[in-house]
């Protein structure tokens, strides 16, 4: 079963087309990455999924049924624009948001305490939000999105502005949710961050999908054409070599992109003849490289 299905969804504002004929499905229990540069239409897509705006055309189905608002009680949403009621106490705020998601006040209070314990901010439950540091406010927002135990979690730029400790804490929480069988949608322009977490992705650019599918299949399709080489001595073998498409020298190592049809073993042989090789590793292309390649093609 799919948690959410988008079918040829389109949204335009005046002349500007924010989302253009976008279709994708997210399997129940999957971690899905909605990726793309700033202004690609990620947030516009999410806003349609949760009923803040309605698509101009196309259809959205959630939990196997056409979209209707009561379904949103099973959705947890962390928007890119973060905000909390500043004058409210942490606990009151969480209980209020929990009740809006259909929880009873007692249940919300109990769950809020549990989550704050887990994220190490239990002592701040009675503080006003405005008294908390930015990092703590972020944690409160994560809790607000997850408090009602949603089946579908939508996170728009979740790692934005997080320090490494909190980012790793959040990542662990996400993995735990995944284990529980929750469906998670990440939306971000920082592709390196979700690469480790996602099962499948949809890359969008200028409102349209440019690449989508399982992460492993996509990477396999783009092949292992990158090689990292660490060597002592002369790197001249790279210069004017017909096997080398392009390369980047990072000082400690060189990243080489093979010319189309070139054999990596041939390059290794050539390199050992001229230099002392410490490391020679075939690399998967990063999502970012794939994205740049795909977008470069579509733009051209």
């Amino acid at each position, binding site marked *: 079963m799919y948690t959410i299905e988008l079918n040829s969804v389109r949204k335009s504002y005046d002349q500007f087309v924010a989302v253009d004929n976008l279709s994708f499905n997210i399997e129940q229990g999957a971690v899905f990455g909605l990726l793309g540069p700033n202004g690609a239409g990620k947030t516009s897509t999410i806003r349609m999924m949760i009923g803040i*705006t309605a698509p101009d055309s196309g259809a959205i189905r959630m939990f196997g049924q056409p979209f209707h*608002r009561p379904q949103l009680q099973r959705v947890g949403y962390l*928007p890119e*624009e973060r*905000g*909390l*009621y500043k004058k409210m106490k942490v606990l009151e705020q969480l209980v209020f948001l929990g*009740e*809006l998601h259909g929880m009873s006040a007692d249940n919300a209070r109990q769950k809020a305490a549990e989550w704050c314990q887990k994220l190490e901010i239990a002592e701040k439950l009675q503080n006003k939000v405005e008294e908390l540091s930015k990092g703590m406010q972020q944690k409160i927002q994560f809790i607000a999105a997850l408090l009602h135990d949603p089946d579908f979690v939508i996170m728009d730029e979740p790692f934005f502005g997080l320090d490494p400790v909190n980012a790793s804490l959040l990542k662990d929480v996400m993995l735990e949710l995944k284990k529980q069988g929750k469906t998670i949608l990440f939306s971000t322009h920082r592709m390196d961050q979700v690469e480790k977490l996602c099962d499948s992705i949809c890359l969008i650019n200028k409102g349209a999908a440019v690449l989508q599918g399982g992460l492993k299949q996509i990477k396999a399709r783009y092949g292992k054409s990158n090689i990292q080489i660490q060597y002592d001595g002369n790197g001249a073998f790279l210069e004017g070599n017909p096997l080398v498409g392009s390369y980047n020298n990072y000082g400690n190592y060189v990243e080489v992109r093979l010319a189309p049809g070139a054999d990596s073993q041939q390059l290794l042989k050539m390199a050992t003849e001229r230099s002392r090789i410490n490391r020679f590793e075939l690399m998967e292309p990063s999502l970012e490289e794939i994205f740049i390649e795909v977008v470069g093609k579509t733009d051209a």
Partner: protein
Amino acid sequence: MHNIFLIARREYLERIRTKSFLIMTILIPLMMAGFLLGPSFLMNPMSRGARHLVVVASRTQTAETIRHELTKAQEEQNKQIADSKKHSLKRTPETPSDLTLDVDTNTSAEERATLAKKVRDKQLDGVIWASDEALAEEKIPFITRDTSSFIQNASIGIGVDRALHREALKAKGLSDQEIDKVLKRLDVDPQNPAGAGTGDPQVTFIVSFIMVMILYMSVLLYGINVMRAVLDEKTSRIMEVMLSVSRPNEMMAGKILGVGAVGLTQIGIWITTAVVMMGGNLVASGGQLKGIITWQMLAAFAVYYLLGFALYSTFYAAIGAMVNSEQEAQQLQFLAVLPLAASLGIMFNVIQYPNSTIAVWASIFPLTSPLIMFSRIAVQIPSPWQIGLSIVVMIATIAGMVLLCGRIYRVGILMYGKKPTLPEIVKWLRYA
């Protein structure tokens, strides 16, 4: 519905716990009392204590008659003050005052200059110059330092006038009793066709004016609070989370109800305090209250206060939804205040002519009807269809405005940091 309740409760609790709520609850009645009682206390001619006047006339008889009339008028006034002390509702001078009148028959120019100097030097408070020339010209000079205190001067004018009438009638050979009968003042008692009296028209006017002012002030005060509540959501950027769990209409309705409940709580505190503090007085003046503040008026106040507040709140909510900061909102606020000020402007006319065409239409037009229909009901109950129509029109407007604000609010989140133009707002409404 559940969401509306949750949102309203949050809004209510957050506001009622603030220090400013406490301060306003205490400060506003103090300020109101200051505005209402201060000027009347300061301006009251009778609170100035003793006055010393001189009546100058060629004939002693004329001067004595003037003295007699003025002294009698003062005595009557002092008696009235003493009576009204038992009733707290009528605003009459607090202290009776003494009036000393001397008689002088020297009408020479020198005497006039001497007396004028005494007035200037504050040895005297006034000189009534009823010389033969002045009587012939039918214009009696009253030399006083307070030439602009028209109430005091008018009462002296009436006294002198009555004295001269008395003299003329006496010259015709009428006896004192006959003259008293002729000069006795009559009261006109206005009655509606059913034959019922309207009580003291002055008091009716004052009571309805005070109630209208409460309505006006609270609509103004809490309307702005609704605007802030909506803006708050935008500046704290929580609205996107809120919109993912509730409909924009629910949020608008919840906010208006929540802030409105704060307003009602505050007014409730004021009324309870007032009743507790003046409980004894209210019972004592019950006779006077009866027929002035009727149950119809209280019911009308409740209905039109609630509807008026809800209506204006939707306008303030719309302003809050359109703008990004309070500074921007201030430029648009006059739009909401304008109809309120306009209704206050025509209210005096409406109280005098409650069935004029403008009064009827202004009491049905939704933006003016809360104040105008209420003042009409206070003065004279209009026909039921007019009352019914005004209520239906207001409810329909409120419902329409809530929907409209919800849309503006929802689309407003697509535009941060930019003040929308009117065409843009119209466009937003189509997007939603």
